[in-house]
């Protein structure tokens, strides 16, 4: 049984269908990259999986199955059990997702205590341990910092640590490195690959960066204007596909030591 199955999904806002006939199958331990330019609908799809479509958005056709069970029409109680435990999400700016007026530790403790019965001290210790396990230096200092006191890269790593606290089976990453410098991006990418290697976490990565998508993804899905243009494993997508749009995207990515304009 596949870990996640998106079957013929349409997503609509009101009467307007913005994503059409989306299909994706993800096995345990697999990483799938969804690539697309602006307006492609890639972020919409990933948010639909976790039931996080903003105002008025809904899955108007098809089904999303997690471990064989449908994710559509779950109750709030069922979602609370699922989110954080089995499926987690990290965003482009994890720092902005946190309360800027609270210490990281305070937000982390609250997060932990919504998922299990622990005292504040125990939850704090668990949080600090998690940061250390994610190889964040000086985890105690981080717990005692405000989000704005940390760099963008550090905030992303904290976001990943929080998302991984309960070792979810599936991690959804929505443009996790787009706002970061290239060297920081490299650190985050490596960290995410290690999550798969050490914990067997499956990852769906949404990005506009084909290079990152190709490096991380066992499977690559290309979206355009709300539809899946092309999909396949890395080898196929990079070398064998004859889809015109995929080739257009591949051609547009500058390559070190590759074609030059001057």
């Amino acid at each position, binding site marked *: 049984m596949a870990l996640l199955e998106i079957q013929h999904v349409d997503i609509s806002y009101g009467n307007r269908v913005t994503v059409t006939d989306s299909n994706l199958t993800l096995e345990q331990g697999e990483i799938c990259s969804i690539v697309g*330019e*602006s307006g492609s609908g890639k972020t919409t799809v990933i948010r639909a999986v976790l039931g996080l479509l903003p105002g008025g958005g809904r899955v108007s056709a098809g089904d999303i199955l997690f471990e064989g069970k449908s994710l559509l029409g779950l109750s709030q109680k069922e979602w609370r059990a699922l989110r954080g435990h089995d499926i987690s999400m990290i965003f482009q700016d994890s720092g902005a997702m946190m309360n800027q007026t609270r210490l990281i530790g305070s937000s982390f403790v609250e997060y932990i205590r919504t998922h299990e019965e622990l005292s504040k001290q125990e939850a704090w210790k668990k949080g600090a341990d998690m940061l250390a396990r994610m190889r964040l230096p000086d985890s105690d200092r981080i717990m005692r910092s405000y989000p704005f006191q940390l*760099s963008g*890269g*550090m905030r992303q790593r904290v976001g990943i640590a929080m998302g991984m606290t309960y070792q979810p089976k599936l991690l959804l990453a929505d443009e996790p490195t787009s706002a970061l*410098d*290239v*060297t*920081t*991006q*490299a*650190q985050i*990418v*490596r960290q995410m*690959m290690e999550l798969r290697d050490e914990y067997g976490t499956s990852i769906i990565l949404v990005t*506009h*960066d*084909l*290079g*990152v998508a*190709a*490096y991380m993804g066992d499977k690559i899905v290309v979206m355009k204007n709300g539809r899946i243009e092309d999909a396949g494993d*890395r080898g196929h997508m*990079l070398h064998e596909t004859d889809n015109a749009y995929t080739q*257009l*995207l*591949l*051609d*547009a*990515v*500058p*390559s*070190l*030591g*590759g*074609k*030059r*304009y*001057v």
Partner: protein
Amino acid sequence: MFDEKDIILEAKHVTRRFPAAGGRELTACNDVNLKLYRGRTLGLVGESGCGKSTFMRFLVWLDTPTEGEIIYKGKDITKLRGQELWENRQHIQMVFQDPSTSFNPKMRIKDIVCEPLLNYGRIKPSEKDAKARELLEMVELPGDFADRFPHNMSGGQRQRVAIARALALEPEIIVMDEATSALDVSVQKTIIELITRLQREKGITIGFICHNLGLIQSFAHQVAVMYLGNIVEVMPGEIVSKQAMHPYTKALIASVFDTKMDFSKKIDPIRGEPPSPLDLPTGCPFQDRCDRCMELCRRERPALHEVGPEHEVACHLFAKGGEEA
């Protein structure tokens, strides 16, 4: 390829310091020396906060360096004022990063691209329509875009308008501040093609700021790498991938995700984070993150010296001539 007599603009020992809270100082640019060659593109690469934007803004007089000089047409342009400054603006123009904020939302395209010409009295208001069409055609946009407002256009189209505006006064030098970073990758390619074509046709000198080393080395004749306000390496664009020497440049190269790379190779990012530009440490700015840092590096700041044809590096690991020290 680069001849002394082709130097159109030269920056010498340019430093920019800002006073910060608590009596400290923020050094955005530290002893920057760069040359721009006529008709060629200089790519200035670095990560956020490295000072590349600060430096390029000196060229269009949006800021003034604390120390140093920038020589253009035989004069130090940092000392220009008043009428002379206004005259010189015609020769150096700029394209900004974000096409959604670089235009006055209340102005139509034709007013935007003709404003520079009206400012310098080069056209009469009655000639606006014709001139606007001409400029739009130069950037491959249909003439009837002239009556539109910026928000009725895509990001790529707006960036073309920004380029048209920068070309209006027929400048010798155009500074482009991350001109493609806010665009989709397929659009980015078409804009780079446009820029390189215009450069070939008009012999324009370009200073291009970029954080993407992979992109810049594909169309820059010369690449300068900046870290924490310091130039750490300058080299011809085509040798970046093979002959980069400075550990930071190598780290940038290692951080590039390429669709043609070897995917089995594990990514080896540099450790740590860029330190704060407040209170720069003595010695090499890269000392805390370099895995080959020596004791000398913490004492003495390395100067840029030549290690190959048109290739300079600021690193104690390489003596003059390029041998490893």
